[in-house]
């Protein structure tokens, strides 16, 4: 692992985003040309190609950016413990040897669970350096009373979650109530204390790219450390065009406020090829720091297995069945 990745994996080497005053001028005048965005998104992956050992390295990088996630109604402490074991050691020894990474075996970026599953996750990951992320604020709809949502954040942080993935009230975006959205996210940031805040926009519910841009900008102004596409529970989750708009918003925020914000696509990234597409997006529209886990995360559960299979193919020349890799 390189140093940036090392540091990022140790925890949060980046200071929290202090946020700025709500300023609608940063986004209200910004138009998003949907067809041009779709065209750029469609050609991003045809303009670049990563092969052989480079592809293997990129897939390892994607692996280190995964927030390995379980968010199901049937989650149990034992299930979470199993996921954490996989998070600690995602690649088997023979694969590590073939990749030349035995000395510094990679881990995923974080494990993402529901608040009540934070304690078993924290226990299972003790000493691994892998932080626990918790969704909060009435995930996935986010429609419980604000007080309850803030308490949920405090609970998760109190149990040891280092990162909090919140959902915004989509109604504030759809009704263009930017003040309400700003105040809500700002209050959640405060409730997070030292924990980093990822703001889930629920882009599948926001529908238009202008809404996505505006909501991204308000969330960053309010102090979000990451902006995240989806809960994974909407009809449409992370797509490249939506991600492109969010990444551009993040770039614009950086130019105005001077703060680096992270990006996390979530939901729908299942194939190793998807991971490469998003890494290409980050490299082309941003730069090297956004290919590191402190500024880039992928919210996924099944993706890891496909990455393992592709890495195995790189190492052996053959595709392995999924059952040959330890399940999460």
């Amino acid at each position, binding site marked *: 692992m*390189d140093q940036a990745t090392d540091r990022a994996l140790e925890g949060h080497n980046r200071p929290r985003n202090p946020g700025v005053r709500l300023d609608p001028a940063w986004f209200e005048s910004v138009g998003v*040309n949907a067809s041009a965005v779709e065209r750029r998104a469609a050609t991003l992956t045809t*303009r670049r*190609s990563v092969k052989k*050992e480079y592809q293997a390295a990129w897939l390892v990088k994607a692996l280190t950016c995964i927030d390995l996630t379980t968010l199901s109604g049937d989650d149990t402490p034992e299930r979470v413990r199993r996921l954490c074991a996989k998070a600690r050691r995602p690649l088997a020894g023979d694969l590590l040897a073939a990749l030349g990474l035995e000395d510094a075996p990679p881990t995923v970026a974080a494990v993402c669970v529901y608040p009540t599953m934070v304690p078993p996750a924290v226990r299972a990951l003790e000493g691994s350096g892998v932080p626990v992320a918790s969704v909060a604020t009435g995930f996935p709809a986010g429609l419980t009373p604000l007080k309850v949502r803030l308490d949920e954040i405090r609970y998760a942080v109190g149990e040891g979650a280092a990162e909090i993935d919140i959902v915004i009230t989509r109604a504030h975006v759809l009704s263009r109530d930017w003040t309400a959205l700003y105040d809500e996210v700002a209050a959640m940031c405060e409730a997070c204390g030292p924990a980093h805040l990822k703001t889930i926009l629920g882009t599948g519910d926001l529908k238009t790219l202008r809404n996505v841009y505006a909501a991204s900008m308000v969330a960053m102004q309010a102090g979000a450390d990451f902006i995240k596409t989806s809960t994974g529970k909407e009809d449409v989750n992370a797509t490249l065009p939506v991600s492109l708009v969010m990444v551009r918003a993040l770039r614009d925020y950086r130019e105005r406020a001077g703060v680096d914000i992270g990006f996390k696509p979530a939901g729908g990234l299942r194939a190793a090829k998807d991971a490469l597409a998003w890494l290409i997006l980050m490299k082309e529209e941003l730069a090297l720091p956004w290919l590191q886990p402190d500024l880039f995360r992928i919210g996924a559960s099944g993706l890891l297995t496909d990455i393992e299979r592709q890495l195995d193919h790189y190492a052996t020349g053959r595709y392995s069945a999924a059952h040959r890799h330890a399940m999460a």
Partner: protein
Amino acid sequence: MALIKDILRTMDYGPSPESSDHVRAWLLKHEGGFGPFIGGRFTKPRELFDVFNPATGERIARATQGSPADVDAAVAAARKALPKWAATPGEERARVLYALARHVQKRERFLSVLETIDNGKPIRESRDIDLPLVARHFYHHAGWASLIESEFPGTRPVGVCGQVIPWNFPLLMLAWKIAPALAAGCTVVLKPAEYTPLTALAFAEICIEAALPPGVVNIVTGDGETGAALVAHDSVDKIAFTGSTEVGRAIRKATAGTGKKLALELGGKSPFVVFDDADLDSAVEGVVDAIWLNQGQVCCAGSRLLAAEGIADALTSKLRARMARLRVGDPLDKSTDVGAIVAPAQLERIERLMRAGAEEGLEIWRADDALPNRGSFYPPTLVTGAEPASVLMREEIFGPVLVSTTFRTPDEAVALANNTRYGLAASVWTENVNRALEVAARIKAGVV
């Protein structure tokens, strides 16, 4: 081999070359040189000229400098094939065109690699743009051929068409010219550009495979003299030319009073107008497609950037950041954005114009990436502070050079856009549909 732990640090793309073995083998097979394709077969190669790979400067093939006698023989073959082909029912001509389309598709990879080696354009473009469009043109006109009796009743073929095409989209221009002519029942003598004759010659092989009747398509390689002989030939009914305005003028003169029909598609210096309410990031991507596609060697390239004063600085700073991401280099690498300029002569022409621009004191900006140390390469370039009178604003550079200036009002944008001798294409960037429609209607260009 690079180590994975090192790549994790740099996150470079690494090399991803498209294989060219099959094309090299084909070129080796034709090492003796290509003869003209006349009457359904290749005639003996004579008086050969060299064909180069612009990305390396190496000679890759030799083709025949078509003589007036070759042109004569080709036109005679086309004339001989005309009555039968013109009388062939539309459905049957369609069948042949469908066969050509399928054969092109079947050899898509071969043809795109050959195009890239011959022309210098990135493999991404020949693979994703040129070749799919070539196949679609043949399919499209196959459809028209089968509908010709019902959709165009009472029309008849023009006759023998002499077609002279440029080097910027060699096979695509061939498709633009040949597909509609064959659909209409015309026969063809085509002269590809001397820099890039190879895909046309490969297409001649496809004509044989697809059982196109002999003489319906004839291909004579050579330089401007061969083209001039074709234009001047008495037995040609129509001339179709795509290329420079200068040569277009000469052809107009040569055909005046001869009764020949004429179609010319010439140069451009197309405006790319960005208003202050545009999505600037998207406009930047639009610029990339407008001027850095095919190294800017596109007749309808958006080579004049007209930006509203209020957003001009923001736009050019975004442009510079984007330019720094463009990868210039080996056209066969799948991650290359900008390939080689087609020939040293064209490179010199670009350099000459840029020297003239520099003498006028224009601000010239390039990303500081190193160029390959052999072959004809020119980096993506942005020129700011240009005046309407600047040489770089007026002359078609036909290279990866974007020249920009600012405007204050929509009226001024239209005036600047129309302040050119050309008028081929234009684009307008705004998120206001009323403004877009109004301005588009006022810009005098063939396509907006």
